[in-house]
C-alpha cells in the first residue's frame, strides 16, 4: 500500500479571465490513505477535486491517478465519486434508488439486464447492503431524506468496487446522528483498503476522522493533523 493514488506536480490552474487559483500546486496521496481536505470558501477545494478527477484541465503541471497521467487514465471503474450538488438538487429526478446505484456499475454498458439475473447485478445488491439501503431499493430518490440520498450516491460510487473514493462535502445536508454513522462507515471502507479523499468545511469532523488533513490556503496545501493545527485552523476561519 505504498504506491501513490494521487499525485499533483507543479499544477497551475486559473478560471478564464481570473487570477490563477493554483500557481504551483504539488502534493501526493498514498494508496490506502484517508485524507481530508479543508479550507475556507473560495480556497479551491472543489477545484482541486475536479482537477484530480479530470473534470478540469490544468494549464501547466501534471496530475496522475495510480501512476497514470490523468489525460491517459481510463480505469474509471477504480474511482468512486460523490459530488456535492447531486445530493441536493435531484429531488425531482424520476429514478429509483436501485436505478441510480446500478448507474455506477459499468457505465459504458447499455440497458440494464439486472432483472434477467445477469452477473453484474451482484455488486449492485452488495453496494445496497453495504450502504444499508437495501430496503429503499424501489423507492424514488426524491422521496428520501438528505442522509438516505447521500447513502444512495455512496452506494452508486461503491458499486464498481473502486480503489479510490472521492467525496465533496458529503455531509452538507445531513443531520448530526446520520453524520456519525456515515463517518464510521467511511472508516470501515478505509480499513478495507480503500483510499478516501474527503473535502469538507467541517474542520472538527475532518480532523477527527481523517488519517491526514491538507489545508488549502493561498493556492497551496499544508499538511496538518495536530490539536494545535485544529485550533489554528479555527482561528483562521
Amino acid at each position, binding site marked *: 500500500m505504498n504506491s501513490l493514488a494521487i499525485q499533483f506536480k507543479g499544477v497551475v490552474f486559473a478560471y478564464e479571465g481570473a487570477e490563477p487559483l493554483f500557481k504551483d500546486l504539488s502534493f501526493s496521496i498514498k494508496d490506502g490513505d484517508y485524507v481530508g481536505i479543508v479550507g475556507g470558501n473560495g480556497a479551491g477545494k472543489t477545484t482541486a477535486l475536479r482537477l484530480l478527477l479530470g473534470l478540469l484541465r490544468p494549464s501547466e503541471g501534471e496530475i496522475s491517478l495510480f501512476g497514470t497521467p490523468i489525460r491517459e487514465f481510463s480505469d474509471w471503474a477504480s474511482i468512486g465519486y460523490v459530488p456535492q450538488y447531486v445530493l441536493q438538487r435531484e429531488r425531482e*429526478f*424520476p429514478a429509483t434508488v*436501485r*436505478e441510480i446505484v446500478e448507474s455506477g456499475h459499468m457505465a459504458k454498458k447499455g440497458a440494464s439486464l439486472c432483472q434477467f439475473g445477469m452477473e453484474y447485478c451482484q455488486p449492485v445488491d452488495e453496494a445496497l447492503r453495504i450502504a444499508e439501503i437495501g430496503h429503499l431499493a424501489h423507492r*424514488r430518490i426524491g422521496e428520501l431524506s438528505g442522509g438516505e440520498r447521500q447513502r444512495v450516491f455512496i452506494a452508486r460510487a461503491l458499486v*464498481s468496487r473502486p480503489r479510490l473514493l472521492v467525496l465533496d462535502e458529503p455531509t452538507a445536508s445531513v443531520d448530526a446522528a446520520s453524520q456519525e454513522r456515515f463517518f464510521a462507515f467511511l472508516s470501515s471502507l478505509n480499513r478495507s483498503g480503500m483510499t478516501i479523499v474527503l473535502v469538507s468545511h467541517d474542520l472538527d469532523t475532518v480532523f477527527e476522522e481523517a488519517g491526514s488533513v491538507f489545508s488549502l490556503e493561498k493556492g497551496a496545501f499544508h499538511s496538518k493533523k495536530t490539536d494545535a493545527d485544529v485550533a489554528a485552523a479555527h482561528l483562521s476561519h
Partner: protein
Amino acid sequence: MYMLIQDLFQYDFLARAFSAGLVISVLAPAVGMFLVVRRLSFLADTLAHVSLLGVAGSIFFGISPAVGAVAVSLLAALGVDRLRLSGRVMTEAVLVLFLSVSLAAAVVIVSLSGVSNVNLMSYLFGSLATVSEAELLFLAGLAIAALLFFFRFYRPLFLLSLDEDLAKVSGVRVGLVNTAFVGLTALTAAASLQIVGVLLLGALMVIPVLSALQFGRGFRTTILLSIGFSITAFLIGFFLSYAFDLPSGGTIVLSAGALFVAALAIGKLFRILR
C-alpha cells in the same frame, strides 16, 4: 371505429398514415424523456422549426423536403450543442436564437420561392394522410436505429441526464454520446415533421412524458408509461380525426393534453392512497 379498421385495410394511404403515426408515438416520447429530465424540452421545438428552414430551402432549390429537413436539422443540432456546451451562452438563449433565426430565414426563402402558403401549412400543422411509402420506410429505419441506440447507450444517457460530471468520472465519452443523442433528436424532429407538424412536434415529445411522470415511478417504467400514453393519444386522436374530419396533428396533441389532465388527477389520487 369498425369502419376505420375496415378502411385501414382498404386504403393504402390510411394504412401508411396509421403505421407512421404509431412509429412516431413510440419514438417521440422515448427521445422526449431524456430531453425533459435534462431540461432540454425546448430543443424539440427548436429543431422542428429549424427543419422548416430545411423544407423551405428544399422547395427553393427543388430537392426533396425530407432531405433538406434532415440535413439542416442535423447541422443545427450540432451547432446548438457546441454553443450550449461552450458555456458562453445560456442554453435557453441558444435555443431561442436558433429557433428565431431559422424561422425568419424560412419565411424569407418561402417568400422568395413564390410557393403557396398551403404547401407550408402542411409542414406547420402536419398532414398524416400525405405520408409517402419512402417516408414511412425512412421512419421505420430511424425507429430501428433509435432502438439500437437506446439499448447500447441507455446507461450513459441515464448518467448524462442525472449529472454530466458523474458520467465523465464513470468513463462515459460525454461529447460523443451527447452528439449522437442530439443527432437522433434532430432526425426524429425532421422525420416527424410531415406527421404532426412543426408547431405540434414538441408537444408529442414532451406531453406523454409529463403524463408518465405523474405516477412517480422509476426511469425505465416512466419511459414505458410515456410510450403507452403517446400510443393511446395517437389512437384516440387518429380515430377522432378520421371520424369527425379534424386535422390529425392537432387532434392527436389535444388527446395527449386530455390524457395529461387525467394522469395529473389519477397520479394525485395514487399519492394520497399510497
